[in-house]
């Protein structure tokens, strides 16, 4: 089973249970449709990072207060800001599916999330490879809304990267990204390699989460 199928099953809340044949087939069909219509687009740019005190960080001219992000970016002097989207047609397909079949919709929704994560992983790996040539290393990506990193910073990412124009990514008044299957994130660049696990899920202390990996 490939990674994105495994991830989809996890998002659907199956935990360690075996997944039924019908759902598996639905997952397969959903991926087929999604891959056909997704317009993957992304943009990234390197910015200087300045750590002011315990919880305060400054990226370009954006001030961020977040203990979690501060931990994630410890010892970093630069960051990559990046944004990625699967495009509006994915939203349309999910809306259309909702009208005819809710079971298919929840599956497709999970598949789209997995596809987006896969896309972000690819982008992150590309960044890592490029930086490694310069002897630099990356930290796992961290998005507004993770931990105490306020979702309100979505706005700064969109403005710094000019995402509406570059990749068609904007946000609503309530800071939701549109198209909905989109991500903004910061990736720390460090001179030293850390044993930081790229899989934040395993690091999480919560044990009763039904989405827990592994």
């Amino acid at each position, binding site marked *: 089973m490939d990674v994105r199928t495994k991830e989809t099953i996890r998002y*659907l*809340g*199956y*935990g360690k*249970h075996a*997944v*039924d044949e*019908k*759902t598996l087939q*639905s997952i397969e069909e959903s991926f087929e449709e999604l891959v056909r219509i997704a*317009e993957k*687009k992304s943009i990234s*740019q*390197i*910015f200087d990072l300045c750590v002011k005190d315990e919880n305060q960080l400054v990226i*370009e*001219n*954006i001030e961020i207060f977040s203990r979690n992000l501060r931990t994630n970016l410890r010892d970093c002097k*630069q960051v990559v800001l990046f944004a990625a989207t699967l*495009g*509006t*047609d994915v*939203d*349309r397909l*999910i*809306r*259309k599916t*909702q*009208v*005819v*079949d*809710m*079971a298919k*919709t*929840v*599956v497709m*929704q999970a598949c789209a999330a997995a596809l987006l994560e896969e896309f972000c992983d690819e982008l992150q790996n590309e960044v890592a490879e490029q930086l490694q040539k310069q002897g630099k290393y990356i930290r796992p990506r961290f998005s507004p809304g993770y931990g105490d990193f306020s*979702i*309100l910073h979505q706005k*700064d990412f*969109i*403005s*710094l990267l000019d995402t*509406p*124009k570059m*990749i*068609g990514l*904007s946000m*609503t*008044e*309530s*800071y*939701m990204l*549109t*198209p*909905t299957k989109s991500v903004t994130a910061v990736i720390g660049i460090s001179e030293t390699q850390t044993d930081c696990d790229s899989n934040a899920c395993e690091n999480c202390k919560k044990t009763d989460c039904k989405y827990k990996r592994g």
Partner: protein
Amino acid sequence: MLRKLGKELLFFDGGMGTLLQKEGLLPGELPENWNIEKREIIQNIHRAYYEAGSHILLTNTFGANRIKYHGTPYSLQAVIEAAVKNVESVSEDVIVAFDMGPTGKLLKPMGDLSFEDAYEAFKEAAIYGEQAGAQMIHIETMSDTYELKAAVLAAKENTNLPVTATVIFDEHGKLLTGADVATVVALLEGLRVDALGINCGMGPEQMLPILKEIRKYTSLPIIVKPNAGLPKQKDGNTYYDVLPNAFAEALCEIVKCGACVIGGCCGTTPEHIQAMVEKCKGMEIVKPTYKTATLVSSYGKTVEIGQAPIIIGERINPTGKSKFKQALKEHDLDYILKEAIMQQDKGAHILDVNVGLPDIDEVSMMKEAVTEIQSIVNLPLQIDTVNVEALEAAMRIYNGKPMVNSVSGKQESMDAVFPLIQKYGGVVVGLTLDENGIPNTAEGRVAIAGRIIEEAKKYGIDKKDVVIDVLTMTISSEPDGAKVTLDALKKVREIYGVQTVLGVSNVSFGLPNRPIINSNFYTMAMQGGLTSAIINPASEAMMNAYYSYCALMGYDENCGQYIANCGHVSETNQTTVGKNDLNLNTAIERGLKEEAYLIVKELVREQNPMDIIQECLIPALDKVGKGFENGTVFLPQLLMSAEAAKQAFEVLKEQMSAEGDSEVKKEKIILATVKGDIHDIGKNIVKVLLENYSFHVIDLGKDVEPEVIVEQAIKHGVRLVGLSALMTTTVINMEKTIKLLRNQLPTCKVMVGGAVLNQEYADMIDADFYGKDAMQSVYYAQSLFKAN
């Protein structure tokens, strides 16, 4: 100078943003402020472009609209005035073009900015621009046709200035929101801009193929403003690497390929423009040529009438359909959407939309239907109404160039409809009837067609945008009816060379086995010059006729469509269930939709519907629900079972109403996703399950204002409202809604759910119940209504 547009080569200026960044503009800083704060820098840039040879200079107002430009030390008007003055300061000998860029927001229904709000923002800016002295309005860097339409309409309706527009295509010739070249051209020509084209996104070389594609479709002068190459990155900075001379060479090629106005975008400098002017000055332009194709478009797709026959799906129309009427009265949009999806799947190219009923508000219903259909189906729509107000409302918010059904030879009709086509663009169906009714002869109908075409010309509407309907008559009452129609069809094709349309199935009223007559008449009509037809794409006979005709006439390469659609034996007669061991309970438990449908169809012949519900459906659903709670059944399975049960319920409901049993009175529950939240999958899951348990769900949709929820709750007298929110930023609106409900309808209970919520949060915002999953809300609703 503008009179030279399309006759002589004109030069725009080059990039602004990239130059300002060099001067110290920070990422995220608003460049418009510099019109006042650093006017010398702005004026110097304008002057440099003027001296380089630009005829048209763009004001530094790319983001000067109230959506992007706010919370600033200056008013929008002050900034726009300063921007125009800055260009004027350079010379009297330049054209001041007021620059309008996108809002940076995605429009509804994919985003949260309404078409009207986008329109208002552009309107305000355009008015300030004209007042300040701009001589034209240039809309640029658009990547969404809907926003583009709002901007063009705002500029044209509120100023007297010429309007030009350019968009960002990617290397595949697509906008970010999916539109292709033909779609953009159809929209902009329909809205009657003065010139159109492409800017930003790519360098000149990559734009060449797109330019050629634009030229294939447009009759207007073309503007091309490339970047100085594709954006590249080094050390975290974006840069462009096509140097002035190479840029000039490439632009020279672009002029040869049909551009009438050229300039530069990101990364280009006065040096680029100077080299370009030196290289291209004096070149003859390739004059725009008139295109005669009949194009109808949606947000992402264009259909040409006049090549292979076009199918216009007729199913979205309440005439003679009691279920449809019921759906309209109950505001059941899902019913309409299902019809739309079905017709698309069956092969329709365009969908007719008619929602006219005497006792509903057709204007708002039409707007809503068009908006909702366009959010899930990419086919162009044919707006079908006799209500002019509804027609205009729908044409205004339609994302694309619609088909309009219809205008007739009556003066009153033409006076009402043609101005709308002139303003919004569209392809209109011209019915060959007038004040004296429908002529009995082919000649009579041909004459009316001629008058319609002539009258359209007065509004600048070319005959390519008029599709003539010579009207299908019923042969059981008029023996010559079909002959006259076919004769008239042939004649209008010969005499006027226009495209044609017919509502085919009228022909067989009163006869048995209507599909036989209909499909044969359809084939004869196509052979006689029918280029589009309003039919039911779910009718096998009609589609067989269509696929056969296309295969026979060489419209179907390798007969591929024919083989795919007519290559297998019809399976519609197989009504027996394959697996004998399956009963209704297991079919539902295993989520087998079709099987559940077929089994229940058999069962209702012998059993009472209420017994089937009590003995099979409810126990099966309960079992699955319990399984979900115990962690042995998962969400997709729970919903598959729910969908299977829904199918079974449909059959039983029909049976009960056929037997005259009134349905059991259901408890009403309102569901809504709160204001600001556009994710509604969670709410829809709850809806499916509640409906399975016989609750009447009034679904208010997503992004719903607290006032609307309360108003509807009072109106329907509901005792339970379910609210959903996905984000921390929208829970506040959930709280507001609950407060307002408590105040105005204290007897009403509120259950909440959604990704960010938990019991603690729910208590904090004073909800009566927190449903951690969809089944919990069903149990809560059951307990609540049982207790009372």
